């Protein structure tokens, strides 16, 4: 019972990933696929009908690209749906019209119709495939309706080919299909479809092979394709149900605990193996791993094969596989060990075809895995036309003229000469079989030290010399004793075996030396980056390292303050705009782009994002020094490691810089505060005394004008010092609000009272609404704001100018305004005057310190309120303070 229960309980991690996926889905556009078994079933028609319905509901539907194929019914339904203008691309003089992705993203309709999901875009488009355009549209939150035929599904590609005998090159990953929010199966019985074909209602691409078309549209084929389409739709529903069940905790999938591992080598099998693995994994609902086996001579692979491998791995990753690269010389053992460590239950592997000799001397990898895998099931996959593949396999290295090392061959000849000489001199003492031994010493020496070709040369020379100098008849190449033929054979054989084994050893040594070299590189780079003092030298270090390790040119893009990616390292290439676009895409999507990838493959560089802890810091691009090529998975891994190292180094540097900056700022701020407060303190004490003293004197001598002006100016000075002190306090973050409820009238009352002396020449009118609620505020500070505004009004307007205060509620917020009938604020400076030390002259009054309004703004902002200045229509300035409704106190009854 318990186990059953535990099966039912959803795994938290799984649920979490489900939640995350759901979250992601929320912002993502919805994908609806109209799915059919073959061309002509009416997918486009069905899609357009649905689009019309949505349009009638008032939804913004846009036809991104529709292939009507000039069919009147289709054209009829398309009427009334706005169409996006196509992008005209000039490809070698031929105009091709393509779907305009950027225009669609810009237009951002609610629903976009994109026909033929499997379409391959013309060269020069952002993505090579239309389904990638669709992915980007979905990411941008646009709902997409699209059409798809069963033969274009990646996992069914091989099956369809085996049914129809026609290879299909345009494929769509199954992941996209399974992620679709809705699949609508458009089904037409084969007989009807054949009728439509006869009536010419099925679109056949012009120039298509008549024979192929006839072959394709056979009833048996159509029946099989229909079955495939139905089954795939059922699978989709099954996946959907499982997702739903998992959400509800009804079912834990893959109860059997299967885990599938697909082994990919640098060969033609890669794509097919990945497809097989994906199908198997989907059928068993099991997680799967794609392991790439790197061989020592991988560096010599042709660029086409490199691309094959890279694309196969990308396809696996897209379809949910975990990717791993295995390297080393003892691949078989490592493979089996890795499979055990990962709990793999099924291994998918291709038939590896080896050269005849290798097959004789070593067990092939597949056989090894079968023999050593123990309880793991092994599925061996073959491809039709193995011979063709075998040819391809053998030709997989670009044919290079073997570099002949003249010295080695000369040395081989020299050894042959020595052996012959020694044998000749010792001939009286030695029998011919002993002389063969002498030659054998030479064979071993040459084979072990110099490799295969010098060894073969030596063997040939040795046999020839032995034949010439020692066998009867001497000094001829004729042989009487047939037993010598065996001697010759043994000699050749020995030299071959020894040189092969020695070569293998050397290869292994080279391989481990390469690894060691890589480790050393990483170590050096880490060391260099950790001591680098600026970004420039970091980039220089990385560039050197990449040049050494990947024989490539480096290209580093970092965003500037405005977020514009700028190239900081690297050289400008012909089509720099394309490079910039690829780098930008890589930066925005945090995915690799450019050469050898699915995004902008025509770019010269391969780009990978430099991903920091919180954000993408930039883009790292590399371009092989020897022209166009694709990078191998392990090189990509290496590059990503480099990017990671650079990211952490950059982040370290930036953090250090930021810390230093803040430190400096803090120190500066501290110093300023100390200075200001001590200055104002030292100024204030004598001022207090002056004010007190003049006050005393004024009591005795009222009317003494000199004393009066001393008193007035002292008060003004005091105000300035207070302002300075206040702004210092506010900027030092020491402004603490003492929030208490007040009736606005009370606060206005205190402010008016405090400003009585200043306002003696300015008649003041108060308009405070009755029954204003209690408002939470710092009474002292808000009173000070009003005082500052009143003082400003008095200061900047001629004597006798009326000043008014209006207080009331506006949209539940408390509004307090101080207005005057004076000359107003210079136009356009309504905002500026709140800046610190911003002063302006109104009339001939002396300038103030420019701090009063800055203080007001700081105080009001601290209350989450707003303050602004305006000129009144009837003239004069008006300063308005608004305290938010959240500060209003609901009065208890």
């Amino acid at each position, binding site marked *: 019972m318990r186990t059953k229960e535990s099966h039912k309980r959803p795994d938290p991690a799984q649920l979490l990933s489900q939640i995350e996926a759901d979250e992601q889905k929320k912002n993502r556009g919805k994908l609806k696929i109209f799915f059919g078994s073959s061309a002509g079933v009416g997918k486009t028609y069905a899609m357009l009908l649905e689009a019309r319905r949505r349009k009638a509901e008032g939804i913004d539907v846009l036809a991104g690209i529709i292939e009507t194929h000039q069919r009147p019914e289709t054209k009829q339904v398309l009427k009334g749906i706005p169409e996006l203008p196509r992008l005209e691309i000039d490809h070698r003089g031929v105009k091709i019209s393509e779907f305009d992705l950027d225009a669609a993203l810009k237009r951002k309709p609610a629903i976009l119709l994109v026909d033929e999901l499997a379409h391959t875009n013309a060269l020069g488009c952002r993505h090579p495939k239309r389904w990638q355009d669709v992915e980007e549209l979905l990411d941008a939150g646009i709902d997409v309706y699209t059409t798809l035929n069963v033969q274009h599904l990646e996992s069914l590609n091989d099956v369809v080919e085996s049914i129809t005998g026609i290879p299909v090159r345009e494929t769509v990953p199954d992941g996209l299909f399974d992620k679709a929010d809705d699949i609508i199966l458009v089904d037409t019985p084969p007989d009807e479809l054949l009728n439509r074909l006869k009536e010419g209602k099925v679109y056949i691409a012009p120039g298509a092979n008549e024979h192929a078309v006839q072959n394709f549209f056979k009833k048996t084929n159509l029946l099989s394709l229909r079955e495939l389409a139905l089954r795939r739709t059922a699978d989709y529903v099954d996946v959907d149900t499982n997702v739903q069940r998992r959400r509800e905790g009804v079912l834990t999938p893959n109860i059997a605990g299967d885990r599938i591992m697909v082994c990919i080598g640098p060969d033609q099998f890669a794509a097919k193996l990945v497809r097989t693995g994906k199908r198997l994994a989907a059928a068993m609902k099991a997680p799967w791993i794609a392991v790439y086996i790197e061989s020592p001579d991988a560096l010599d692979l042709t660029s086409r094969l490199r691309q094959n491998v890279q694309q196969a791995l990308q396809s696996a990753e897209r379809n949910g596989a975990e990717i791993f690269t295995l390297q080393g010389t003892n691949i078989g053992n490592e493979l089996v060990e890795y499979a055990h460590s990962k709990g793999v239950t099924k291994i998918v592997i291709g038939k590896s075809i080896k050269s005849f000799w290798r097959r004789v001397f070593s067990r092939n990898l597949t056989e090894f895995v079968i023999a050593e895998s123990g309880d793991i099931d092994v599925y061996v996959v073959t491809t039709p036309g193995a011979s063709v593949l075998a040819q391809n396999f053998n030709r997989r290295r670009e044919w290079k003229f073997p570099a002949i090392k003249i010295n080695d061959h000369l040395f081989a000849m020299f050894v042959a000469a020595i052996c012959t000489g020694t044998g000749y001199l010792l001939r009286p003492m030695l029998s011919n079989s002993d002389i063969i031994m002498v030659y054998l010493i030479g064979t071993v020496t040459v084979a072990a030290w110099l490799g295969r070709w010098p060894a073969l040369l030596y063997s040939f020379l040795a046999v020839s010399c032995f034949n010439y100098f020692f066998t009867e008849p001497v000094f001829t190449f004729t042989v009487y004793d047939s037993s010598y033929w065996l001697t010759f054979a043994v000699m050749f054989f020995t030299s071959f075996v020894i040189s092969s084994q020695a070569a293998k050893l050397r290869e292994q040594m080279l391989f481990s030396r390469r690894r060691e070299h890589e480790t050393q590189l990483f170590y050096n780079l880490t060391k260099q980056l950790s001591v680098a003092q600026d970004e420039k030298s970091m980039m220089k270090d990385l560039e050197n390292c990449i040049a050494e390790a990947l024989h490539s040119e480096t290209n580093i893009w970092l965003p500037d303050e405005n977020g514009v990616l700028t190239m900081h390292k690297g050289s400008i290439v012909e089509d720099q705009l394309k490079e910039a676009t690829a780098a930008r895409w890589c930066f925005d999507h945090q995915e690799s782009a450019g050469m050898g990838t699915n995004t902008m493959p025509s770019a010269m560089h391969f780009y990978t994002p430099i991903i920091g802890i919180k954000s993408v810091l930039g883009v790292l691009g590399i371009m092989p020094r020897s022209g166009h090529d694709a990078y191998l998975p392990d090189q990509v891994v290496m590059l990503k490691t480099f990017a990671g190292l650079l990211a952490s180094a950059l982040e370290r540097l930036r953090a250090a810089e930021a810390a230093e900056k803040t430190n400096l700022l803090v120190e500066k701020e501290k110093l300023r505060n100390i200075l200001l407060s001590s200055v104002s*303190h030292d100024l*204030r*004490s*004598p*001022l*207090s*005394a002056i*004010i*007190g*003293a003049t*006050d*005393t004197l*004024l*009591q005795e001598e009222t009317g003494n004008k000199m004393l009066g002006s001393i008193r007035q100016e*002292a*008060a003004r000075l*005091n105000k300035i010092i*207070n302002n300075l*002190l206040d702004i210092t*306090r506010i900027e030092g973050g020491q402004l603490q609000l*003492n929030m*208490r*409820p*007040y*009736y606005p*009238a*009370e*606060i*206005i*009352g*205190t402010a*008016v*009272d405090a400003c009585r002396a200043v306002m003696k020449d300015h008649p003041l009118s*108060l308009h*405070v609404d009755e029954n204003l609620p*209690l408002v939470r505020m*710092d*009474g*002292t500070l*808000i*009173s000070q704001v009003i005082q500052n505004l009143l003082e400003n009004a008095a200061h900047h307007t001629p004597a006798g100018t009326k000043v008014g205060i209006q207080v009331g509620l506006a949209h539940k917020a408390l509004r307090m305004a101080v207005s005057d009938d004076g000359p107003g604020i210079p136009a356009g400076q309504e905002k500026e005057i709140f800046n610190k030390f911003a002063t302006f002259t109104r009339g001939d009054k002396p300038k103030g310190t420019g701090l009063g309004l800055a203080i007001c703004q700081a105080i009001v902002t601290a209350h989450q309120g707003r303050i602004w200045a305006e000129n009144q229509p009837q003239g004069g300035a008006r300063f308005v303070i608004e305290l938010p409704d959240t500060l209003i*106190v609901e*009065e*208890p009854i």
Partner: protein
Amino acid sequence: MAIKPRIVVIEDEPEISRFLKTALEAQGYSINAVPDAKTGIKISSAHPPDLIILDLGLPDMDGKSVIKSIREWSQVPIIVLSARDQETEKVAALEMGADDYLTKPFGTSELQARIRVALRRGSRKEQPEEQKYMFESLTVDLLKREVFLKGKAISMTPTEYDLLAVLARKAGRVVTQSELLRTVWGKNAEENDHYLRIYVQRLRQKIGDDPLNPQYVFTEPGVGYRLREAE
């Protein structure tokens, strides 16, 4: 001739100290100016003065502790001098038992008014408590619990009256918010600021006082209320 009231001024800034001494001596007070708290306390305990003027920004002790140590043995009136940025210390000093405060810089008339009120409180300790508060047309009879405006009796709720009575007993001096809340509503009401606002508002309405231009009850933002000094 009456004996000159003696005032101890504890102020570390010589300019202010000198000004106070000159101004107050001219007013007929005897001044003992000291620059630090310890000397101030020593002198005050040796010869109890009639009033202490205490600066809150002393170098050797903070104002609160000075008040606390003085209050341990004396009810002598204390007026504190505070700078503008010592708001909280000022309120704390009042809570500790200071009678009133003056914010620097202050005018002479303000100073004299505060001293006058404080000295009156000081001298009252030997006399029976004043029975009546009178200013212009407002009369509060503290014995009979009656309030008259322009000769007419005003009806008040007990809370309103209690509030007015607290202010009237300390007329001319600031009464802190928490003191008002504590005495009128009880110990647990200290946080309920809005009670106070609402009742002050009602009180003002009843005695015909406009908060925009008050004649009787003055708001001291952040500190409390002050009823105008009696005639």
